[in-house]
């Protein structure tokens, strides 16, 4: 992989060059504490030292509410007029969120391809940025604290410069467009990177023991902890909305006042909603809140592993950070494990 450096004082200028590659979106402040990905025009608006945004990148490619097609009683179904070929550069994406996108790529692909997702995904360049974890981050135990693919460029902070890994041909074009801003990697940079890497590793404080977790979950399928969590869960949907890998959606038709035309839309759904597994006629396969909580966890940490060989959790900590009831996946795992040991 091509690796170069970008002195920090050149970042402003580099961002200027990126405009040629699409509309730049980056982490920006919302309110006092929150950070969200939003359009920016220059570096001054970018929050480089953020921990996590409220929503992950899925909001760009798998929108909270999206039009699937228009329908007409006489003409049938028609694709909506496509947005002009607008390109995006998403700057400052942390490794966990890049892994989140890789998981969404996986599930949107397969025998049937989610064309809506890839229509946006194929138009976005991803520029990654490394991060310093807080107590809620457990990406290191999931193996998502580092990425070696899934980005066009990836910037790692090495004090006075960024070490820049070039992941794609498009990333290389970006570097070439601002050629004079970048330098070759020298010995000092290499040492700085290795030193920072150790520092960063030491800063992870929260761990989750992933190995054999699927088996533990099978064993503890009837564990009391599911009822405890079910009692606390508000079914408010927050965890699913903020999760980088929650991809469930509900489909609904919205009718115009002429009562003969309208739009089919889809919106983010959550398996914690009461009607999620409800079928026509009234039978609900997961009527109990505890069964819904268990199912969400089971799918991410057990089912997905069987299906794709890895959990569909990237350790970003959003679910704990935003759950009003403070439900904590790490705590659930610890409870399941300690009870297995007894």
């Amino acid at each position, binding site marked *: 992989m091509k690796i170069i450096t970008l002195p920090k004082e050149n970042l402003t200028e580099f961002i200027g060059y990126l405009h040629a590659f699409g509309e730049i979106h980056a982490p920006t402040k919302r309110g006092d504490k929150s950070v969200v990905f939003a359009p920016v025009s220059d570096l001054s608006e970018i929050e480089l030292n953020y921990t996590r945004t409220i929503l992950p990148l899925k909001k760009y490619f798998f929108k909270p509410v999206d039009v699937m097609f228009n329908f007409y009683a006489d003409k049938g179904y028609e694709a909506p007029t496509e947005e002009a070929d607008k390109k995006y550069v998403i700057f400052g994406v942390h490794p966990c969120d890049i892994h989140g996108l890789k998981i969404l790529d996986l599930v949107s692909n397969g025998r049937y391809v989610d*064309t809506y997702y*890839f*229509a946006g995904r*194929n138009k*976005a360049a991803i520029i990654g940025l490394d991060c310093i974890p807080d107590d809620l981050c457990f990406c290191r135990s999931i193996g998502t604290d580092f990425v070696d693919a899934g980005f066009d460029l990836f910037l790692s902070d090495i004090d006075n410069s960024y070490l820049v890994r070039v992941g*794609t041909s498009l990333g290389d074009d970006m570097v070439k467009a601002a050629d004079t801003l970048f330098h070759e990697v020298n010995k000092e940079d290499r040492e700085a990177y290795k030193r920072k890497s150790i520092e960063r590793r030491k800063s992870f404080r929260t761990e989750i023991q992933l190995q054999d977790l699927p088996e533990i979950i099978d064993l503890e399928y009837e564990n009391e902890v599911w009822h405890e969590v079910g009692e606390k869960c508000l079914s408010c949907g927050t965890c699913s909305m903020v999760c980088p890998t929650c991809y*469930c959606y509900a489909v609904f038709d919205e009718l115009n006042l002429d009562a*003969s035309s309208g739009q089919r839309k889809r919106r983010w*759904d959550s398996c914690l909603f009461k009607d999620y597994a409800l079928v026509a*006629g009234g039978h609900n396969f997961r009527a109990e809140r505890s069964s819904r909580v268990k199912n969400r966890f089971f799918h991410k940490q057990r089912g997905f592993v069987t299906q794709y060989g890895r959990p569909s959790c990237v350790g970003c900590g959003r679910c704990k950070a935003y759950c009003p009831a403070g439900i904590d996946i790490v705590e659930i795992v610890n409870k399941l494990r300690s009870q297995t040991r007894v």
Partner: protein
Amino acid sequence: MSKHENCSDCQNPYTPHPARIIRILPQIPDHQLFQIHIRFEDQGKVFTYRPGQFVMLSVIGVGEAPFSISSSPTHEGIIELCVRRIGHVTDALFRLPPKAMVGIRGPYGNGFPVEKLEGNNLLLVAGGLGMAPLRSLLWYTLDNRSKFKDVILMYGAKNPGDMLFKYELLSLLDRTDVKCLLTIDKKDESAIWKAHVGVVTTLFDFVDIDPNDTYAAVCGPEVMFKFVLDELLKRNFAKDRILMSLERNMHCGVGKCGHCMIGYKYTCLDGPIFTYWDAINLPEMV
């Protein structure tokens, strides 16, 4: 940008094909058989499917829902859906005038593993609306009769008035290439009913089955399934020779929306036909 290289070639799997309701055949109260013709832009294209597969049907302005196909792929040109009026989509479907346009996507799901079933005896056990998906398999085997050994159908309904495809099935009673056993739970004094009376499991007394070269396909309400299963296991059927069709909430039919997930299987992709062995290895299923 790695992502998906050939997206421009990809078909949007969510857009329905225009289709027309050719004929509506009332069955029993609140159940109708819809004969549907699907129009493709490519005139030569025909809608091919396997018994046990399903389609997503859209009623314009109301929404979309999954329906198992009741016709056999051996009868080309149209598909038949046996629908119970039970939710908002079916309610709207029942209000449509004849010849109305609907939208169809599919076929989806695995369907019955017909190649695997060939060369074996087939025991079809249905209860209530469970006859809808099994009818497809029934006619498929009868139209490919030489490929199968004995074909037995057991179908139970509450009373003669609740029996789907009643006249069609009654006409099978005289055939020698299929053993058709029909039963009703309770005989109504006034009704003329010459077939069996009693729950569907009582029909097992009338057949002699070798479980080693027989596949059983079971479809019906949960209670019935439980008793039929006991009966089959008692007769030493292997768990992977018992096939069942599962129902779940579905919004996409193509393994994306998540609703039909059971543990780690999508009912819409990995099912709706599961062996009993598959099913007992899924959480939430026993």
